[in-house]
């Protein structure tokens, strides 16, 4: 069974780029999940990142709150990183000049032998050559 670690950029870009590649990949992952072909993980801080992303990208407070509810209803498991994984994330963030917020997703993906799904191109470029990561680039519609 495939283990997929989703970050806030992947989830929010799927929402705001409905007809693009990100939404399609997102839907496919959840279809596979229904067939028990994968486990979809987020991390403890992912929901906060999504809430902040909604807060600073959408004007409509009511819709943002509704969207938060709907994200919470998705069949996502919250993975709590171990102390060793947190240390690895600090190590990786120093080595790649990235943030621990981002590096921890990658560390967990490596630890679970899974794939980290992200739309954060800057992070992917910074960790160039490392495995266990999939950059999902949105279709430009704007």
């Amino acid at each position, binding site marked *: 069974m495939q283990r997929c670690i989703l970050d806030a950029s992947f989830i929010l870009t799927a929402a705001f780029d409905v007809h693009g590649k990100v939404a399609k990949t997102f839907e496919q992952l959840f279809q596979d999940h229904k067939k028990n072909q994968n486990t979809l993980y987020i991390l403890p801080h992912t929901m906060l990142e999504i809430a902040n992303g909604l807060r600073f990208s959408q004007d409509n407070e009511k819709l943002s709150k509704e969207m938060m509810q709907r994200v919470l209803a998705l069949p996502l498991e919250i993975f709590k990183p171990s102390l060793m994984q947190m240390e690895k994330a600090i190590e990786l963030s120093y080595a790649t000049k990235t943030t621990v917020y981002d590096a921890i997703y990658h560390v967990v993906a490596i630890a679970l032998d899974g794939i980290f799904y992200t*739309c954060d191109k800057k992070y992917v470029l910074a960790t160039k050559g490392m495995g266990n990561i999939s950059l999902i680039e949105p279709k430009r519609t704007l």
Partner: protein
Amino acid sequence: MTNQRVTISMPQHLYEKLAAQIPARKMSSVVCEAVERYITSKESIPPESDPVSNFFQLAKKMKKKEDITIQEAIEKGRE
């Protein structure tokens, strides 16, 4: 209208706040109102559709953004 008697448990801190604001005789009506609000909010989401469809259904009503803007929104306030 007939009533069903129920026993509920809640965290101590929550009970203390509730008890400080609501007289004991009004406790049931306040809890009923909260439950009704909860049920109403859940009913606004079509129960027959799946969570992914619900997610995209609402997403259609929201503003489209560039991925860079979304990333900046996620990271805003971190520094």
